[in-house]
């Protein structure tokens, strides 16, 4: 059993990242100390001090070229080794929104362990509305084995906001989607209020993602990428109008899963 006070999370950022502080606030509310570090100033080997690595949302490098692409490549040139080891060790990596785009562009998702694909195996393409969109969506837990979903049952519905222009998840092929389903690597799908999958219906599926995919993980479940922002639905007052402002928001469950997992190490 790990003493949570000894654990630490690293929230990485580069120019254009902007959701780092909210993630830190969420993690620290659960008692997990968190450092926000600029990637350029991350010393070699330093990563091994952390149990969780977060790629937060934002517009890294202005989202120029393609959302997440520039940071995704930079991650590989700058810290590939450390990162591979980190993932191999079974430590947790989480990409939120732009961070999800980064993990996909870096070839870490959908992936197997520390083996990063040399070319991306998926993409988060322009929303089918061709618009940036900020709205609260319904997420449906898929019964994933990933630590992030530990507290979320299959079919359980979460209310969390999204805010992105490039979030339409596409995989290499239909077969690749089936493989994700078979290997239980889909963590959340966009849903209707009832918990039924959105089946592409707008606005429940806000971006046109194939199979309503909102979040996936690697084979081992220790790397997750998700377009919705759980850190914006952590406290009840953030979810004002969607629940009791005096309690907690649904996004908290995801972070609780992380903390449970670290404690259990």
């Amino acid at each position, binding site marked *: 059993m790990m003493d949570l006070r000894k654990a630490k999370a690293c929230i990485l950022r580069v*120019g*254009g990242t*902007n*959701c780092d*502080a*909210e993630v830190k*606030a*969420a993690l620290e509310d659960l008692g997990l100390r968190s450092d926000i570090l*600029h990637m*350029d*100033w991350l010393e070699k080997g330093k990563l091994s001090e952390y149990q969780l690595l977060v790629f937060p*949302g*934002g*517009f890294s*490098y*202005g*989202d*120029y070229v393609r959302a997440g692409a520039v940071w995704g490549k930079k991650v590989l040139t700058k810290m590939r080794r450390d990162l591979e080891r980190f993932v191999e060790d079974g430590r947790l990596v989480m990409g939120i929104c732009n961070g999800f785009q980064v993990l996909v562009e870096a070839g870490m998702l959908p992936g197997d362990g520390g083996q990063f694909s040399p070319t991306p195996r998926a993409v988060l393409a322009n929303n089918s509305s061709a*618009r*940036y*969109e*900020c*709205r*609260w969506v319904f997420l449906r837990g898929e019964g994933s084995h990933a630590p992030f979903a530990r507290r979320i049952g299959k079919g359980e519905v979460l209310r969390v*906001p999204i*805010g992105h222009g490039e979030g339409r998840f596409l995989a290499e092929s239909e077969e690749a989607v089936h493989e994700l389903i078979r290997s239980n690597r889909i963590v959340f799908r966009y849903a209707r*209020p009832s918990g039924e999958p959105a089946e592409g219906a707008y*606005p429940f599926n806000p971006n046109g993602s194939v199979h309503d995919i909102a979040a996936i993980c690697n084979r081992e479940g220790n790397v997750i990428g998700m377009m919705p*922002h759980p*850190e*914006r639905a*952590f*406290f*009840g*007052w*953030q979810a*004002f*109008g*969607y629940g009791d*402002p*005096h309690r907690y928001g649904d996004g908290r469950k995801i972070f609780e899963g992380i903390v449970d997992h670290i404690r259990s190490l």
Partner: protein
Amino acid sequence: MREGLIRRVSEDPPVAAIDLREAEDTDLLEISNGMGLALSLYEMRVIKEEFSRPLTDVELQTFGQTWSEHCIHKTFRGLVETDSGTVDSLLKSYIAKATRELARPWCYSVFEDNAGLVDFDNGHVIAAKVETHNHPSAIEPFGGAATGVGGVIRDILGVWGEPIAVSDVLCFGPLDTGYSGLAPGIKHPRYIYKGVVAGVGSYGNNMGIPNVNGAVLFDSNYIGNVVVYCGCFGILPKDRYVRQTKEGDLAVLVGGRTGRDGIHGVTFASTDLPEDSEGLRSAVQIPNPLVEERLRRAVIRIRDECLASGITDLGGGGISCATGEMASRSGLGLTVELDAVELKETGMAPWEIWVSESQERMLFSVPAKNLERVARIFEGEELEWCALGKFNPTKRLRATYKGVTVCDLGLDFLYSPPKLKRKAKRVEPSPLPLYLKEPEDLSSELLALLADPNVRSREGVVRAYDHEVRGATVVKPIQGQSGSHNDAAVIKPLKDSWMGAVISCGINPFYPDPYWMAACSLEEALRNNTAVGGRRVAILDNFVWGNPEKEDRMGSLLRACEACYDFAKAFGTPFISGKDSLYNESPMGPVRPTLLITGVGIIPDVRKAVTSDLKAAGDPVYQIGITKEEVCGSAYLRSKGIEGGDWPRVEASVSRKIMETLTATIDAGFVAACHDLSEGGLGVAASEMVIGARPGLGMSLDLGRGLFLTGRDDLAIFSESAGRFLVEVRAGHAGEFEEAFRGLPVSCVGEVLKEGALRLSGLKGKELTIERADLTRAWRGE
């Protein structure tokens, strides 16, 4: 122009000297126009008198910039001749006067710095600023609007504020305007609309600052004069508001490179500019929020580590104004070495470097001992920086380039520009008779009004902006899946405090009397703020007017300012900042006088905020405030193309009491939902409360008989009288609610229904029922 007045004094760098001593009036005007100085003959004469030597082009440009409408607001600070005497400064005589007389102890810094500052939680202040970016948005909608947002964010950084929210208010021509009737050079409203919304969204989203409030208006008057207001709000620890530049401190420029963008006017010193519409090219700026995001991080770190003695943004006038102002307000002087400035392009003349308005730059004053640490912070954020020079006690603004002194001006003279004199002709429109029969079918009137471009859902705009980033948005601009609008936004900026900042606005340019137009806008800003639970509101004014050299434009400006004073006083709400944008004229005529009032209030516990959607079947619903036949300029008449009738007026004493009482009942927990009645009146407000909710609403105007000073159902439902609310009161608290409002115009008019519909019975018992689905479809324009 006469030979010999202008001389090239240096080839490299290219510098020209202009000898005003021999210049006649016609020469002075020609120089002012030719160099794009926009100085009047009188101002040129004042400069001529002062100097017994030729001036460089750099120096004359410095005057052009420093004495510009943009930098010193000469119309607002000048003299205004009226029928009843001369007004010395609209700003001092009306706007700031109200603030001074109200003397609120919680006003921390007003009308001084880049933004107004008011107390928040103990130890913190809120900074607020609203700007306009009309002209740039008219020629390049995306870039113009984006740099408008970028600029106002820098105003907040420029008072050491951490930006917590942005807002935008936009006025466009009707989107269905025909393509044929447009005057040359005027872009179609649809093109402008798309570009502006994308631009505002792109900058705020990229910076990670939620856009939480605003308004969108359509009117044919705005076809030629698009209006783009951008606001930014920030927070900072009170003791980190540092402005004490000292002798020996370094002036440090950081951020984007300096280029030919944002330079107005033409050059005499370099004659080899390419032909292709260079003037316009430089008016267009390419936004780069990526740089500003890094600037923001650097500013906050330098603030938290107390490394700088002063800060300001670079806006109008570029380096010349930023350095000049910083030196002048500290009673110091400065020699700027222009060689140090990182440039985007080669071949720039010194005056161009000096006045360029390139985006994403800030100026700091840094004690020499801290320079190394400051530099490390900049470099850590991949920001280019340079030290421009040292502050000295000379009270002179000097600039050198390649060893040549290109500017040497006394700051006292530069910062005491001559007062401008303008004439105002009083305008006092009188109401016209109303020729409109009461329509038979009020359901279809209401549905049509819900679909009116000025009323319908703003979802298309609101969702294009991230209003949740920073994770601190409590009351959101739009609520729920098929959600409806709230009246104001609530932000919770501090981790360890439940205190919220409440942001609202009011804008009513369609009421034809400038005095009541201003009064209504001010009252609406307060009303919106109150509706969600805000109080202790500070306000900002933004005037968008036509050419102030025309007497009628000044006349209406004067009237609007009078109302600002009268009602700020009457409501006890101080102005803390503002800005005017004049000369909004196009080939299609002057802009309609448009005043935006922005309100910044507080709420002690964000969890007690109130949204507009109805909550629980069975709750009683109250209407507050008197409805008169005030429909001139209303959405109802405008949608029919009818002018006539009286316009809304504000009864401040009643309205103020209503708001104070409402605040008390919100704090007591009696209020379940609240919406103010504004565009489209009671009909639209009631519909919106249903659209956003699960339950419905049944109400009878007859129950509120005493509140309606009209016998007509259409006027009762669509009048836009000020000072009104519709409130859902929690079932058990009706008695206490009524008790609190005793003596005020309040009536229970109905209750929340289980079924999702709006049921309304009129003054004479006429009934209408509309299903939520139909309301929603009309309102969403489906």
